[in-house]
């Protein structure tokens, strides 16, 4: 029935089997947790951060050239943000004298009055932007709060932290970034 030695069905079946085996291998090695750390912003020029602070004065990231800046994205309804807030307060206090790093909070998808009340109760004297912050979030590619970015004095993004930060972590990050630049 068939020419000797040629078994097309077997060949096809084995070829298909091989492809499927590869597919199973790929499936078996995938991780299920989604990795959301898109780091394409690190090293690039920091997108604009322009707005009006809680007390009505204008604030622009470009005016801070010469200083390291920590841009912190925040919301009063997010638990890790609330948990990291005292750390930021301590960090700001520790660096207030030297003024070598400045802090700015961008409140994302939140009501201004809630943010005002939160800062009044929990402290924090640095600039906080609340109005029209959606545009800033889109420009920075922020998908969830909290997220913090370290911006170099020349206006580039040095590092990105997803999730709540601790003061030690920020200091360490800053020290390493300063060492890398100088």
């Amino acid at each position: 029935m068939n020419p000797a030695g040629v078994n097309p069905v077997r060949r096809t079946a084995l070829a298909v089997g091989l492809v499927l085996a590869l597919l199973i291998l790929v499936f078996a090695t995938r991780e299920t947790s989604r990795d959301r750390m898109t780091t394409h912003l690190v090293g690039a020029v920091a997108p604009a951060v322009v707005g009006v602070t809680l007390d009505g004065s204008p604030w622009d990231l470009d005016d801070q050239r010469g200083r390291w800046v920590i841009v912190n994205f925040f919301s009063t309804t997010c638990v890790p943000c609330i948990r990291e807030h005292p750390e930021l307060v301590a960090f700001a206090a520790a660096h207030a004298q030297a003024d070598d790093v400045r802090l700015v909070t961008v409140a994302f998808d939140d009501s201004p009055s809630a943010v005002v009340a939160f800062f009044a109760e929990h402290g924090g004297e640095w600039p906080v932007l609340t109005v029209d912050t959606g545009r800033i979030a889109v420009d920075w590619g922020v998908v969830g709060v909290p997220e913090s970015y370290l911006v170099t004095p020349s206006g580039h993004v040095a590092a990105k932290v997803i999730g709540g930060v601790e003061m030690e972590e920020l200091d360490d990050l800053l020290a390493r970034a300063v060492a890398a630049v100088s």
Partner: protein
Amino acid sequence: MWGRRLNATLGTAFVALGLSASVAGLLSVAWGLATRSPVFVVRARGWVALMAVAAVGQVAVMERALITRDFTVAFVAEHGSHRTPALFNVATLWSALEGSILLWVLILVGYVVLVVRRFRHRLDDPVVGWTLLVLFVVCTFFFLLLAGPAHPFARFEPWAGYDGPGPNPLLQNHVLMAFHPPVLYLGFVGFTVPFALAVASLATGRLGEGWLLEARRWTLMAWGCLTVGILLGAWWSYEVLGWGGYWAWDPVENASFLPWLTGTAYLHSVMVQERQGMLRVWNLSLLCATFSLTILGTFITRSGVLESVHSFTESGIGPMLLGFFGLVVVTTVGLIAWRGDSMRTVGSIESPVSRTSAFLVNNLLFGAFAFVVLLGTVFPLLVEAANGDRISVGNPYFERMTMPIGFALLFLMAVAPALPWGGTTGATMAERMRWPAVAGAASMVLAVGLGSRGWAPTLAVGLAGFSIGGAVRQLRMAVLTRGLRGLVGRSSGGMVVHIGVAVVAVAFACSSAFIRQAEFRFDRPGERAVFAGHELVFEGLTTVELSEKTEIRVSVRVDGRIYLPAISTFPFGGQTIGTPATRSTIRDDLQLAVLAVPGEGSTTTVVRVTVQPLVVWLWVGGAVMALGTAMAAVPAGGGRRRRASGEAAEGSPEGVTV
């Protein structure tokens, strides 16, 4: 009345019983086949009965636990709630992973019972034996899942006053939640039986006409349920998501669609096998592929490797499902590689313009369709494995790639039923297709007149009209030759299914091509807006406190009638879910979804309005397909069967081996 923890204990006992019975049955049948002593196979009936007791028992126990809110069972503690209305507690069973496996096992064991009953007089036949063996293996696997990673009867210690979170709010406690999963599973699980028959055929090397007919019947039933299940799922998504979308080429949706594609290919291709004895190995492969795809689909839905809004929460059953998929693939490929060549017959075609060729092209088109869908679904994983990049493959890809295949299938659907098996000339076909072609052209003109713009939807309408014309022609001929009795039976039922498919195709093409969407902001009652030929008047808001959620209903008068889209806040977890309101007419659907309600800093209500033509016809087309399947399942009468067995190139029921 029931002691504490009785439900959990009893449930676990049933799982253990089921597992033992399926293992015992497996061993019994294997022994019977190996030693060629059919008595062991016959004894398996007892094991099947025990499995049935176990399957029914565990579902009954779980339902009881859900309805009585017995929080000592972990599953109920995680998914049940006092606030959920009583009826929905029944459906909560399949709203989460472990319960869905319980449902799967119940349906699977039900099918096994049906198989044993059907073949009760032929249990000594090795083909039946092998079928039962495969079925026992599958049952064992699923009982293993229940005993291991997906254990539904784990215990829980509720504290005083504990109340569970209820089922996932996204499921909305919509009435379709009660129907979609069971019907879908009837489809998925149903493909296990033809798969078992296919493996039995390969293992024994026998492919008599009787087994062929059996496999086809089971496949038809499973296919019909799967069709309805998929459409119910689309309908449910449409009602619940509020974006006017019913099909998003989402991985879970694709996973349910793939077995449907190969199943449809099989149902057509098997006719070539009946008629001319060709494509045997191909058809067996299709059956095996269909079942493998159901397992793959289960894996995708439950393992979390691909994100989907429809997936269950991640769990540990992914590796086991993948392992089982691997086992199925290895077994199938091995069997086909070993036996396939000896079961082939040399094909013969008299003319390229014949139904045989049309079915070959049909196989090709469905194969390509399945390949495109499968490739698009798993491609992000492949790219990530190759170089770590994360990409997405979504709607634009699938639409663009499947559109030409869809058009080709519509055309084939029209022409193939009129093609004779043996071949014909173009002139004959031109004569036969004359009135269907006129119907197609007329429907195109009608479409353009009614507002169809763009070549793609217009062509889709034309081809659908052509198909319906062809199908009606066949039905007319059947009635003319056999009277009303001619309306039942495989070919006429198939024509009705074709009509349903054409209707669905038109609805799909037109609703996606002519969808319009806008957001409207309302501040004060009485404000009105006009959109896509409809008038909307904002009437106000009401807040309703229900047991499981707080609902803010927005009252909108559309063309005179009030509709109440709502936005609900669920206290547990603080989720906010929108409940859209839909106005369906024959001409179009208007869907309202609330995006924002007045809150701090704003008094504006934002409502999204989606208008799509012909959506209702999707569901109508689906019902026609179901009707056609039922009609096809009715035997067409003795005459046809005799004729078929006389002409078949299949040989005797013992089959032909070389």
